[in-house]
């Protein structure tokens, strides 16, 4: 609740979470509509008739990257910078619950940002859903993506105690995820040798599921897309692997930082 209140009272926070994806979307709009007029190559790779609709969904997911993947680390670093990290971590409160609370607040705003991006996509970028969009399936894809990214975020949060400048790693991870996960261009456009890397990230599956759910049956035509069952299974598997790793690892690293007196150092 503290995080939500702070978010709403500090100027620019809400705009901040939408600005990045919006301008990334605008960049794709300029490239796909004004610089390059022929996007038949893109259509042959994705089966999607509308490049902008495809990209709007991709960049709407960008806010999840920052909140779920990096929100935990930023929460810890924020406490360190404010000098309250030690106080927080010596209380008897459950630290995982504390971290989940922090990340949940960020993800609430990510969902708002996601919705705003989709709305802007519909108003200004011609976002056109399929005739019978499967909203529950899209919601499932989003939820599972947020869950598995959060688990990754817990691992990253634990690394904050060791790394001390995890914000720099976040700056590197963001373009890596945009590059490999299919936010701005299809994974199939990447060199074949690096495409397997894309399938390590849960975001790749989440995007596939959401795009398939929202754009089929008229949207994705003529290409062999992975089956929904396989995509959901893989996303569930990644979540099932990451959560039991993320929580104990965070606990271990925070306890280790407590023992070595590294809780507050940054």
């Amino acid at each position: 609740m503290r995080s939500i209140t702070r978010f709403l009272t500090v100027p620019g926070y809400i705009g901040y979470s939408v600005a990045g994806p919006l301008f990334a979307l605008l960049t794709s709009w300029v490239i796909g509509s004004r610089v390059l007029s022929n996007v038949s190559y893109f259509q042959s790779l994705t089966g999607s008739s509308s490049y902008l609709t495809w990209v709007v969904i991709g960049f709407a997911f960008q806010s999840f990257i920052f909140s779920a993947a990096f929100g935990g680390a930023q929460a810890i670093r924020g406490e360190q910078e404010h000098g309250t990290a030690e106080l927080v971590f010596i209380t008897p409160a459950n630290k995982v619950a504390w971290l989940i609370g922090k990340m949940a607040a960020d993800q609430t705003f990510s969902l708002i940002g996601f919705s705003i991006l989709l709305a802007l996509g519909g108003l200004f970028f011609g976002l056109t859903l399929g005739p019978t969009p499967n909203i529950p399936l899209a919601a499932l894809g989003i939820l599972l993506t947020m869950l598995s990214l959060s688990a990754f975020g817990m691992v990253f949060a634990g690394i904050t105690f060791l790394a001390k400048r995890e914000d720099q790693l976040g700056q590197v991870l963001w373009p890596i995820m945009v590059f490999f996960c299919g936010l701005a261009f299809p994974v199939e456009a990447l060199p074949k040798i690096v495409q397997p890397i894309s399938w390590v990230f849960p975001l790749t599956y989440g995007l596939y599921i959401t795009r398939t759910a929202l754009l089929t049956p008229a949207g994705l035509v003529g290409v062999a897309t992975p089956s929904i069952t396989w995509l959901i299974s893989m996303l569930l598997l990644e979540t099932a692997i990451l959560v039991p790793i993320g929580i104990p690892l965070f606990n271990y690293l925070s306890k280790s930082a407590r023992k070595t007196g590294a809780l507050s150092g940054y």
Partner: protein
Amino acid sequence: MSLGKEWRTFNAVFRRNLRLFTSYSTWLIATIIWPIPLLAMNIYQYLGVASSRSVSTTLSQNYGLTLSGMIIVGTVVYLLYNRLLWSTGNSLQTERWMGTIDVLFLTPASRLTMLLANGLSSLVEGAWWIVAIFLLNWFIFGIQLTVTSWPAVAITLVSTMIALVAVGVFFASFFILSRAADQMASSLQAPIRFFSGVAFPVAALPQALQFVSLVIPVTFAISALRATLLSGGGIVDILNQLLPLYLFTAVFLFVGYFLLRIVEKRAKKDGSLYQM
């Protein structure tokens, strides 16, 4: 103003920042790696949409540019802008986080000198990025530079760096007042990247939006560097870009200096320097 004292201040801040930078392994690793995914992302925003031949033909015929050349210069300047904005503009906020801002502002050291030292010290990272991006593109695309005047390239590069430090000085005061330096700096990254021609030529923007590009110094820096590195432009050819760049530098430094003095006076009066 004593030049000797200013130099001591500059030297102390510069060396401190270099020590800070080299003491965080994650920072070093991130600095080394960052150009690679950023460059790849910028290039594949084209190659993921149209075939390589189609992209090359379109850019060459309509804008007189090659994809690799356009992206190299845009990415280099964008990385420099980011680093210099954060290191210069965010430096006072960082002092606040470290709990040293009160002490710093009690010293007689020039705040402007400190900001400039913070900014210029990050050019060590910037130098690596410039080299890395050119090497990467040379290996991957075999990029051919068309340079007729290396002094013009050097002047453009130095002018760009100084202009970007001036931008950081200008924003330093806003970052202090807002207490949301991270969010402000992050919020500026995306629109700057869009309007200044990092990922596409400014001429591709709708006419109305091109006017916004003209108030961003990064636009002129990118344009001048592309002209000197990729089109064989000399000093005379880039005067139209250098003069606005120098004007921006002067204005940002001048206004930034006075804003800083106002912020300091106000903060000392109401005791708000250290408040997060």
